[in-house]
């Protein structure tokens, strides 16, 4: 397979970026719409093409890019995700004059995430990580009229440059002790204090990107202030890519697993507990999803801490499996926002009676997020906990299961609100005649696709496991 064919999904992302620039320069709404639909079709094409790249295991350009199954799986998830994000925003953001800017930033971050997931040396890891983060600052501050967007973007910006600096310093220490930037690092490495400091700093940098416990403060503000489509993108794309890169770096340090296993395990446990417990106190759906996203990063870290093959594979497929639920929940949020609801949890009261269709798919997403069998989210949790048990971290798996059970408390509470509590008595906003305005077809297609994926991956987990393993 030629080099060109092996990086075709990344080239498609580059084409998407140029298309977004073209959208920017056309004034006509019809052309903009056509270009956006073309982008969506190209993303789907790249997804289908990626099936031919599975099990190829190529290393390109003096090991700068690695096209193994983790990388291809990430590309597939990213391309489906961006397909859904384009469709979901087609009638809303896609109609505004800012559509070009908006999708340009999304596609840039997409390419960065894809590069990060296939990085074969530390330079490319750093490059990919920054390319996946920098455009998202502007995405968060996209609503120029919105005070909260600016504040969230400023906090996000300051924390992420600090994390990037820590990561760079950690890389420099690893390079200094190992003598090479290519992953996996060659030969047995002596454990020195310098190397341990390097690993700790790298973990801190990645913990920020994943929003793990002590570095999580940016996430709730960012989700709160950003558009629902941006939330859907951010909760999957950069995190999936970061976990792939983290797995690659840690497993590339031959014979050093004692140095990081307990660090990552403690990080995972703290992140799961913090995310789950604080989620109980939330009154808006976006903040609830943010804290649950923090907890979910903790579950993925359980697989990383296990350090064995099943654990690592579990950590990577975790975000794919979890993604269907969280993206779906954000899409429901976007439907509700289109009907004049804000994201207060109280607005879900009686939704089962007023909008039965929407309530039932929301239930599917929430159950998948909890991790109940027959839905995609279950297999993500199953695989990381299985990895932890295999890797002699039974206590960590037990903490994970306890947190999953606890998390049903706040997910289930939304289901209870939708079906068991009466709708609010105050008159609904006039725009919201019950069943009057249908959901537009692109958004409905995106919702259908997400529900479909949640079911299909839940019933046929082999698809997930084969792609990763």
């Amino acid at each position, binding site marked *: 397979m030629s080099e060109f064919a092996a990086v075709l999904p990344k080239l498609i992302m580059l084409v998407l970026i140029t298309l977004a620039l073209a959208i920017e320069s056309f004034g006509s709404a019809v052309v903009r719409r056509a270009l956006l639909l073309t982008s969506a079709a190209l993303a789907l094409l790249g997804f289908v093409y990626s099936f031919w790249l599975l099990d190829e295991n190529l290393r390109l350009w003096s090991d700068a890019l690695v096209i193994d199954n983790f990388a291809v799986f990430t590309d597939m998830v990213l391309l489906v995700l961006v397909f859904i994000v384009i469709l979901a925003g087609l009638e809303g953001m896609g109609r505004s004059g800012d559509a070009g800017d908006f999708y340009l930033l999304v596609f840039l971050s997409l390419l960065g995430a894809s590069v990060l997931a296939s990085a074969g040396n*530390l*330079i490319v890891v*750093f*490059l990919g990580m*920054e390319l996946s983060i*920098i455009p998202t*600052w*502007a995405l968060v*501050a996209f609503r*120029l009229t919105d*005070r*909260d967007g*600016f*504040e*969230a*973007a*400023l*906090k996000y*910006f*300051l924390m992420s*440059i*600090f994390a*990037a*600096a*820590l990561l*760079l*310093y950690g*890389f*420099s*220490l690893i*390079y*200094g002790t190992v*003598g*090479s*930037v290519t992953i996996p690092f060659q030969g047995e490495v002596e454990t020195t204090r310098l190397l341990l400091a390097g690993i700790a700093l790298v973990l801190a940098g990645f913990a920020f990107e994943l929003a793990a416990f002590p570095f999580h403060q940016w996430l*709730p*503000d960012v989700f*709160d*202030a950003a558009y629902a489509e941006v939330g859907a993108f951010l909760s999957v794309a950069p995190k999936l890519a970061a976990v792939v890169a983290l797995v690659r770096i840690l497993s590339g340090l031959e014979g050093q697993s004692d140095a990081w296993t307990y660090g990552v395990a403690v990080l995972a446990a703290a992140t799961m507990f913090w995310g789950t417990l604080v989620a109980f*106190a*939330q009154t*808006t759906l976006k*903040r609830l999803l943010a804290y649950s996203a923090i907890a979910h990063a903790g579950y993925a870290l359980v697989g990383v801490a296990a350090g064995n093959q099943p654990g690592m594979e579990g950590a990577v497929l975790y975000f794919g499996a979890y993604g269907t639920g969280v993206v779906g929940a954000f899409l429901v949020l976007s439907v509700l926002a289109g009907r004049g609801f804000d994201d207060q949890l109280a607005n879900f009261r009686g939704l089962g009676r007023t909008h039965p269709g929407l309530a039932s798919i929301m239930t599917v997403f929430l159950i998948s997020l909890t991790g109940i069998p027959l839905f995609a989210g279950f297999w993500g949790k199953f695989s990381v906990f299985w990895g932890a048990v295999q890797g002699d971290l039974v206590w960590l798996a037990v903490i994970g299961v306890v947190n999953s059970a606890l998390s049903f408390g706040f997910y289930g509470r939304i289901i209870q609100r939708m079906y068991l509590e009466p709708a609010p008595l105050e008159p609904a906003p006039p725009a919201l005649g019950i069943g009057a305005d249908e959901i537009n077809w692109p958004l409905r297609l995106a919702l259908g696709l997400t529900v479909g994926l949640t079911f299909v991956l839940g019933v046929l987990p082999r698809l997930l496991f084969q792609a990763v393993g």
Partner: protein
Amino acid sequence: MTLVLVFSGLLFAIGTYGVLTRRNAITLLISVEILMNAANLNFVAFSRLWEPELMTGQVFALVGISIAACEAAVGLALILAIFRRFGTTDVGRIDFLRG
């Protein structure tokens, strides 16, 4: 070699101190630049130690510098927009989100 490491460690400490104590967005940005330069210094020094003819470390330092420039470009635009909106770049006073 030790001297370079001590110097870069000192820069790292200064940068971290700045990030933790300062409240002005631009001062914070400059503190982070100091941190990044500490890392770049390490790369160049280690490159001489390990593989002087390959220059991997020098390339990493160049990539680090250019990425720091990208961050500053987007970040300063953001800070400018915030200054126009709030009339301040004091992080402690731009604090309305809760939860």
